């Protein structure tokens, strides 16, 4: 018996030589290294899917096409007429069905161990707890290999297959450096499933499961990524020469992953831009980025980076808007995002961003296809959608030869549907993954719809069946004319009916024959007697055409309808006579938050006439003067300006009547913590000189607008004060609507935050934080000496290396025997800049002893401290500060919140100023910042600083402290047009900013503000109505209960761990 079979097989092989020679790489061929329990399965018989609509790829469709699958691969594909298969094959008729390449997801955690996040620890953890020769930080895990931990057991594989995925790039989604990813098929056997074990190298900004303190912030994570790149570069050179101080498996793995496709799990569009900047710095130019679905908010900026975007389809659900009080909890940006999120793909595509879809973020991958369909509905061309599901991700992974199209040689990953993929009514029928089918529906489901004559118990009854496969409904007319509901279920070919007859229910079971023209079987009446029955269909249900027509109507509307519908609503709102059309906020607004505008603002040519002008220059306060703004600059300040002479020909200025108004320079806040994402302190080490606030700037913070409404145009975003050597700060202009990096002042000199006193001693962090150095003011001094001495030696080592390179033989260098470059240390680089006076220090300080100490430290190391911020005891050492050349940026009147501010006095500003210290008042507070003009008044109230000088506390003096006084801070022709028009004396409690110009751009205008409020109200109303209409049946709108969003308002001492 056995012998016969073997012979038979051999015979077949001989006959089919041509097709059998194909190399059996994929699944479905047994692994010969494994012993077999039983008999070998030879996989000799192919599968032929014939007469289907074959979507070979996004652009090639064959109407009557045939596909031959064998041993997990496609061995032939083409028009049915031309494709033949010589060997034994099972032929499946696919008439009426569509075949598509299976979907590919580049961002999955399929088969990966679950990641447990850990919280902020009550005691410090400085180093990694991981056992083994790994790196110092638990969030850097390049040694993690998805392939090594891959375990596909469980229900997930089937769920992925049923969602249409034929392959996914999976990785352990944990940490800042996450290790290598693997391309796997959603199959249960890991060896069959694992297609490409080392397919990609993964990163993110999120700390994940690490219980270590560092990094606690977004900027810390950024610095850690940069330093790790640098460390790997150094390790690759130093380690082979035995100069790396030991073996570091993490860095080795990092070096090994460098040539793999880079995937960065970014998130919001801001994180996409941030990640791109970091990767570009290290030569990675077109990474694959995971978005969060909001990239449409800045599609152009994302396109400009050249990144490839993996975009999710987990659009937000609607909110319950039934209670108008509770509906206030939902921000306009959240409402707008609900409406616009499905247009993400269309808008990104239109901007030229290469796209792939991912099921990331979906609880149920089954919802994936509908999400993609919504994207198509919102204007993404179907071809592009298909590409983004198949060939694009395949190409990104370098697996075009295996995935993404239905061509010979590819894996037999075939998705069978009963209609065009993006049609809402289309079902997935079956899914072949590596040649193994997962059935989901009958290929040719029985159509039961129609009216039947049922013969049972010698009577004939009329049965009406409606609905669609899987959802049949039946009713029954018995003796009288009233319809009765009949329960009907169909399981394969067996139909079961329960009929409510007059004398009790009749239960019938039978079989469906001849495409449902005849049903036949037996049943029991209510008294238990058996009886045969049959049903014969009279006619085909006639209403098919009608439903199709409805379909068409539904489909044609939305193409542009979704957003234009909104626009119509808004434009139909009553237009007040004599004004321009109201602002329409229904599209994307810049920034994407409250008070965002539909267009980017542009610089104006403006002349403010006849105002009281506070120049903050030698000219003092000018009465009845004009201020001319042109091309972003102050063109002229003076009495009766002749615009024709001052402006280029053809340029006219908008005039603002300044009578009764006061004009001042834009207010500058030397110390703020607004406009930062995910943490203002990387206070997890005594020094965090390597971090830069500029990496975490948030351009969408409504506080910028609120402060523009208080006349503020410029601010220094400082790192917090949790450690003696804090992070690098960012000086921004409040360019409302610009992207984060465009808020930064390009040519500003760099600054860093230092801090002294209670915060850096961790005095108020709880008893767990009594072990980390420093705990005393004595220790703080030593932190500085130690770090600066190291920085100086670091600089020395670099010089020595350069000299050694000069002296080394070319040949030695070429052959890798040249001098090893010292490790680039971002922290010491920064400190070295301070020693070289290329970077300035703003130091958080309260007590005079430590202020004095730090000036001695700086003097002895040969640099100058630029600014002491807070400096509440500055009045005690104002003479020493003046002598050292340090400025002071103080609170006007804060005290009593810490022991070290016990001696703070509101006269501090006046004393400092009078002793010749350049003095400013700052906010450190999102609320107070919008009233800095009032704070300046306190310099007059407490200590009688003349009002002109007091105003400089928040204009020219902070500009001087920030080394930007050549550009801003006073009304001097040639400077940036950062100008505020006030309703009253600028130091008065009655003063309101009416216009605030930033570089000639009217970023705040009291009239436009009023219009914006109206437009926001209209837009909220429109979206609320739409949400309500969408969920009308519920009577509430959407399902999501409104929840109040807590904005993070940071201060110096805000410690968070929110970057997980």
């Amino acid at each position, binding site marked *: 018996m056995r012998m016969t079979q073997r012979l038979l097989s051999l015979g077949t092989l001989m006959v089919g030589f041509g097709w059998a020679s194909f190399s059996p790489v994929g699944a479905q061929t047994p692994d010969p290294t494994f012993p077999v329990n039983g008999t070998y399965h030879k996989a000799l018989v192919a599968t032929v899917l014939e007469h289907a609509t074959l979507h070979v790829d996004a652009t090639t469709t064959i109407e009557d096409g045939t596909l031959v699958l064998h041993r997990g691969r496609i061995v032939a594909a083409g028009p049915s007429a031309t494709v033949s298969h010589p060997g034994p094959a099972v032929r499946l008729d696919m008439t009426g069905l569509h075949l598509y390449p299976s979907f590919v997801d580049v961002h999955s955690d399929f088969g990966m161990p679950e990641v447990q996040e850990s919280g902020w620890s009550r005691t410090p953890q400085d180093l990694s707890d991981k056992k083994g020769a790994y790196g110092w930080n638990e969030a850097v895990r390049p040694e993690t290999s998805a392939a090594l931990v891959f375990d596909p057991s469980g229900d997930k594989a089937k769920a992925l297959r049923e969602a249409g995925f034929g392959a996914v790039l999976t990785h352990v989604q944990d940490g800042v450096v996450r290790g290598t990813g693997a391309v796997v098929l959603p199959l249960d056997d890991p060896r069959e499933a694992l297609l490409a074990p080392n397919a990609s190298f993964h990163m993110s900004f999120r700390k994940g499961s690490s219980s270590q303190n560092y990094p606690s912030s977004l900027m810390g994570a950024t610095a850690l990524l940069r330093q790790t790149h640098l460390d790997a570069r150094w390790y690759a050179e130093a380690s082979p020469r035995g100069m790396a101080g030991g073996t570091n498996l993490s860095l080795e793995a990092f070096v090994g992953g460098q040539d793999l496709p880079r995937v960065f799990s970014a998130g919001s569009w801001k994180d996409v831009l941030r990640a791109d900047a970091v990767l570009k710095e290290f030569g990675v130019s077109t990474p694959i980025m995971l978005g969060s679905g909001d990239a449409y908010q800045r599609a152009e900026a994302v396109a400009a980076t050249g990144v490839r975007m993996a975009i999710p389809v987990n659009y937000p659900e609607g909110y319950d808007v039934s209670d108008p*009080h509770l509906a206030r909890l939902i921000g306009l940006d959240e409402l707008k995002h609900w409406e616009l999120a499905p247009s993400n793909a269309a808008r990104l595509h239109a901007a030229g961003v290469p796209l792939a879809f991912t099921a990331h973020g979906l609880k149920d991958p089954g919802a994936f296809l509908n999400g993609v369909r919504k994207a198509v509905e919102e204007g993404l061309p179907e071809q592009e959608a298909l590409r983004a599901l198949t060939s694009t991700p395949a190409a990104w992974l370098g697996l075009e030869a295996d995935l993404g199209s239905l061509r010979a040689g590819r894996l037999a990953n075939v998705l069978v549907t009963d209609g065009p993929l993006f049609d809402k009514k289309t079902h997935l029928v079956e899914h072949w993954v590596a040649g193994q089918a997962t059935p989901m529906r009958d290929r040719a489901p029985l159509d039961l719809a129609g009216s039947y004559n049922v013969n049972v118990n010698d009577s004939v009854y009329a049965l009406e069946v409606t609905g669609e496969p899987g959802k049949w409904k039946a009713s029954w007319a018995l003796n009288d004319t009233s319809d009765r509901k009949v329960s009907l279920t169909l399981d394969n070919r067996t139909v079961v009916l329960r009929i409510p007859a007059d004398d009790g229910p009749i239960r019938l079971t039978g079989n469906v024959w001849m495409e449902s023209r005849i049903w036949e079987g037996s049943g029991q009446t209510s008294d238990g007697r058996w009886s045969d029955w049959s049903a014969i269909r009279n006619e085909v249900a006639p209403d098919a055409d009608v439903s199709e027509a409805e379909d068409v109507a539904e489909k044609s509307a939305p193409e542009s309808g979704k957003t234009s519908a909104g626009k119509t609503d808004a434009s139909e709102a009553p237009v007040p006579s004599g004004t321009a059309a109201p602002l329409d906020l229904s599209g994307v607004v810049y920034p994407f938050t409250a008070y965002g505008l539909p267009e980017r603002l542009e610089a104006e040519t403006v002349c403010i006439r006849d105002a009281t002008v506070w120049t903050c220059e030698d000219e003092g306060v000018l009465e009845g003067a004009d201020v001319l703004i042109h091309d972003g600059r102050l063109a002229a300040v003076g009495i009766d300006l002749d615009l024709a002479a001052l402006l280029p020909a053809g340029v006219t200025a908008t005039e603002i009547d300044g009578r009764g108004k006061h004009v001042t320079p834009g207010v500058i806040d030397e110390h703020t913590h607004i406009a930062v994402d995910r943490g203002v302190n990387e206070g997890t080490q005594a020094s965090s000189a390597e971090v830069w606030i500029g990496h975490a700037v948030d351009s969408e913070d409504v506080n910028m607008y609120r402060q523009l*409404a208080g006349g503020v145009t410029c601010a220094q975003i400082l790192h917090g004060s949790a450690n003696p050597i804090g992070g690098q700060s960012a000086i921004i202009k409040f360019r409302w609507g610009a992207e984060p990096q465009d808020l930064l002042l390009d040519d500003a000199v760099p600054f860093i935050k230092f801090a002294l006193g209670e915060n850096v001693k961790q005095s108020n962090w709880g008893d767990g934080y009594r072990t980390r150095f420093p705990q005393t003011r004595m220790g703080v001094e030593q932190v500085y000496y130690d770090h600066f001495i190291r920085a100086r030696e670091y600089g020395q080592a670099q010089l020595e290396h350069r000299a050694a390179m000069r002296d080394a033989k070319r040949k030695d260098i070429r052959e890798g025997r040249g001098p090893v470059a010292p490790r680039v240390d971002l922290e010491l680089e920064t400190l070295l800049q301070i020693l070289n006076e290329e970077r300035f220090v703003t130091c958080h300080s309260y007590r005079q002893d430590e202020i004095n100490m730090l000036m001695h430290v700086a003097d002895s190391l040969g640099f100058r401290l630029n600014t002491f911020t807070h400096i509440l005891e500055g009045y005690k050492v104002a003479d020493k500060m003046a002598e050292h050349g340090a400025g002071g940026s103080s609170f006007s009147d804060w005290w009593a919140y810490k022991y070290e501010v016990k001696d703070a006095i509101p006269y501090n500003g006046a004393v400092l100023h009078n002793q010749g210290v350049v003095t400013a008042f700052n906010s450190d507070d*999102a*609320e107070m910042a919008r009233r800095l003009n009032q704070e300046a008044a306190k310099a007059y109230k407490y*200590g009688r600083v003349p009002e002109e000088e007091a105003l400089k506390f928040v204009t020219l003096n902070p500009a001087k402290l920030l080394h930007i006084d050549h550009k801003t801070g006073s009304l001097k022709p040639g400077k940036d047009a950062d100008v505020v028009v006030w309703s009253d004396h600028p130091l*008065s*409690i009655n003063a309101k900013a009416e216009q605030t110009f930033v570089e000639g751009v009217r970023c705040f205008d009291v009239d436009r503000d009023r219009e914006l409020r109206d437009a926001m109200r209209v837009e909220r109303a429109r979206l609320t109505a739409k949400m309500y209409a969408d969920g009308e049946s519920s009577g509430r709108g959407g399902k999501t209960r409104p929840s*109040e969003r*807590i904005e993070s*308002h940071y201060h110096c001492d805000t410690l968070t761990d929110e970057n997980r």
Partner: protein
Amino acid sequence: MKTAKNLLRTAYAVVALGAGSVTAWAQPTPGAEQSRSVLILGATAHLGTGDVLEDCAVGFRDGKIDYVGRSFQVNRQKYDDIVDASGQHLYPGFIVTNTTLGLQEIGAVRATQDQYEVGTFRPNVRSVIAFNTDSEIPPTVRTNGVLMGQITPRGGVVSGSSGVVHFDGWNWEDAAIVMVDGIHLNWPSTHHRHNKDGKIDIQRRKTYDQQKHEIERFFGEAQAYAAAPRGSLTDVRHEGMRGLFDGSLCLYVHTEDARAITEAVHFKRELGIERMAIVGGYDAYLVADLLRENDVAVMLQSVHSLPRFADDDVDLPFKLPKLLMDEGLTVALQVDKSMTEMNSRNLPFYAGTARAYGLTEEQAIQALTRNPARILGIDDQVGTLERGKTATLFLSEGDALDIRTNSLTYAWIEGREIDLDNRQRQLYRKYQTKYGAEILDLPAPNN
């Protein structure tokens, strides 16, 4: 009869003495009992009644105001001392409500904190007895015209009772205007909250319904206890609540949210509580009719605060006093958002902002004087410049609601002239001495 110039000269002599010799600091000595009657002449008087009197005369003796009228009508001979206040502004002492002044000295030093007691329901806890008259902060507050405060405990669901004090006295007993003016209830949130990142951060440990039930049960028990004849056993918590049910105490409900406010008003009606004020009340403008019809006042959150929602009008916190007063509500201002103690001295400027955003000058002043006095139940004693009222008042060189011009020349508490010096002024003088610099502190008299 001592003239104003004499008085001031005396003051300066004291200051000058201090400037040279200050090495240790002590809080200003409480003012001496009023022994000489005083007549203030020529000031612009903001009476707190809504009226303003130009060139007015206000006289007081034995700690009580006995004359309010025009300068040319008063009989000057009846007064021992005349203060020439022409060009100056006269105000009733400002009242800061819902403050922890005197309960907390330094935010970061636990040993100096006395506002948070342990427990959920603790109406028997009295803040007034922990009011530290030797705190260094009130002297810096009264320098700007804030002369009285409602000292309020924090935390829990029922935090305890507040009391009202003058910012001058040898101990809390001397300082107290009323030992217990009301009970403070923190209304739980009716909705969820989440952080910016979208991760849900459940702020409610129990469901709202459960918390509300516990509040109702606690108040219900207290009411039943109060209604019953006194037995042999005493529950001090219920004793603390007694006054709520006979109208002698006010129930202060701390919440910002519209829904919670409406819930609190229902609660008031169900329990038949006579006096209620909402503390915070950011959303009160949305339910103003309900509040007015139920006679509920509002002690409004800091005017100098950020809008609650990004979509709110940028200046909404500034104009809330106007929105509420336009609805006919009784509104007092307070300083609850951050650094309540030290910021209490900025209370006048909150009123200044409220004026810039719609209130009339006298309305703004009432929000610091008559209105809080009414809510606290002490308007028979303070809050206005009227005959028979306590002589707690001050003179400022200019508009006291504007930082530029708020500059006190005199202040009296219960007729006692108080020392406007404070530790901060002393430190200023000390270090001006170090630099040999001019002391530009107290304004020149009558310039």
